């Protein structure tokens, strides 16, 4: 017994040490966002001499971060909406409806999961330009949603596959049409999968860098990732302000994570294991 509890203590100590090491960069950034440039240099590991939010406020004002957060929210929420609305019926059809070519079409969609964005980003840019959608949040939203589709359809197909087919048949005998069955019977049962899908989509679109970098040109359209990147360039030597901007950019992701932490981690483990 005592050998067991001492090994428990050992594991805890090791884990806390590792955790300190892992969290150190985040702590460093938060502390530095309260410091002056001089202080960051002369005492990088100490607490700031005074806790004022000057850097964060300045970064917020100078760096246009309010605009970036609004833009990110528009693209992310819009993308989540489109993905959920389009991928769930498709995943349902692939898992529960029998039709010719079901497997073939599904494999073509699945191919998209292997296809890296890098391989098609150039045509996407020119394609969007010819549609007049380059440098618009609409264009970025549509492309982000489309790129998320293969995995989302795959996830929803797996979710609906676990729903017993008998449920569909009995609803059919009651005279319900396919869409009615989908909305009132199936979708509520697929809630866990849908939640995982929404979390994935949120993380991917909110954190994306490459698509905004290629598809957005004017600063007023920037999302938070692109905004922070350009802010770092403009403020190259003003470390306090850069850390202020970095902390601003960290906060939304961390808040969302803390709220949805449990379903977040469950979604990650189930979603990627399938």
């Amino acid at each position: 017994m005592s050998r067991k509890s001492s090994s428990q203590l050992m594991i805890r100590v090791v884990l806390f040490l590792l955790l300190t090491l892992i969290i150190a960069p985040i702590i460093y950034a938060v502390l530095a966002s309260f410091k002056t440039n001089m202080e960051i240099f002369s005492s990088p590991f100490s607490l700031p001499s005074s806790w004022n939010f000057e850097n964060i406020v300045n970064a917020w004002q100078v760096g246009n971060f309010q605009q970036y957060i609004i833009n990110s929210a528009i693209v992310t929420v819009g993308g989540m909406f489109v993905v959920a609305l389009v991928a769930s019926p498709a995943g349902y059809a692939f898992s529960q409806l029998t039709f010719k070519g079901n497997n073939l079409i599904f494999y073509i969609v699945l191919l998209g999961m292997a296809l890296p964005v890098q391989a098609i980003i150039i045509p996407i840019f020119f394609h969007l330009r010819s549609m007049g959608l380059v440098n618009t949040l609409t264009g970025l939203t549509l492309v982000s949603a489309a790129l998320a589709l293969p995995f989302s359809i795959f996830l929803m197909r797996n979710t609906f596959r676990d729903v017993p087919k008998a449920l569909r048949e009995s609803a059919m005998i009651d005279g319900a049409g396919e869409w009615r069955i989908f909305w009132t019977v199936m979708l509520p049962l697929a809630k866990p999968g849908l939640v995982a899908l929404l979390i994935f989509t949120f993380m991917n679109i909110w954190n994306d860098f490459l698509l905004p970098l290629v598809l957005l040109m004017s600063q007023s359209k920037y999302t938070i990732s692109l905004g922070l990147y350009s802010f770092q360039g403009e403020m190259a030597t003003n470390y306090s302000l850069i850390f202020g901007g970095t902390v601003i950019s960290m906060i939304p992701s961390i808040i969302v994570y803390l709220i949805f932490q449990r379903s977040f981690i469950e979604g990650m483990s189930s979603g990627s294991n399938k």
Partner: protein
Amino acid sequence: MNMNLPTVNVSAQNQNIVRGQRNNKIKRFAVIASFLSPALILYGVFMLYPMADAVRYSLFDWNGASPTMNFVGIENYARLATDTLFFRALGNNLLWVVLSLTLMVIPTLVLAVLISKVKRGKTFFRAAFYLPSVLSLAVVGVLWSKIYDPTMGPINIFLRAVGFDFMARNWLGEQMFVIPALVIASTWAFYGLYMILFLAGLQSIEPQMYEAADIDGAGPIRKFWYITVPSLRNTMNVVISMVIIHALKGFALIWIMTQGGPFYMSEVVSTLVYKTAFSMNQVSYATAQSVVLGIIIIIFTIGFNYYRERTE
């Protein structure tokens, strides 16, 4: 006379049934199309069509601005085959793959095993260790380039403070250090995901296996190598393939921290594609590069899944 009547009726009935069946078929098709078409249209317009276009662009000579495109066949690919910069980028991708496999797989597994052994507070450790992975790569990139900063960065300040001045250096500016430094930042950003996958895998191992090993008197290290690692084969496969694919696709961190520099020392294929297309305006040549990268990744992904299905 009367004999014919019923047969006519029957055939009319049959016709009605056939017509009804056809109507049903059309209705059925419309229903299925209504479920699938929004997804398929979006997928077709923004993925399949660009995929075909990527191949098309790569066979032309085009700068992205001129109204005409010159067909050049496989000339872009021939140029690629002798482009030392491209091979250097590909080589950096491979180095990136090797380093991330070393840094990510076993250390992350050990971390997951430690967390799974904790009796109370498992949820806390799992959530806390995952924290860096929720940050965007833009945040990770900006933060770590400041950590590596030659004068203001905490690493160098610490090394100088403890008298190891000779070890302080420009981490992102030297050939020997730039890629390892980038991979460390990327490990920090991604290990959480693999840790969670391993934790999920660990839960599915039968506790009886460990009990049997305990009876045989096996120590923790033996149990790790002879029970944990083999039982996690599937998870291990998933993690290894994800690490490799991530390493081949890597763009954001490198672009934010070094832009592939200095002097192409951290250039990878995706940063090279971006530069070639959007700063050098060699759109068709860049597309050829991206097609090759895409093919490498697709072959790898499909080959890996095929292997996994066969061994499962």
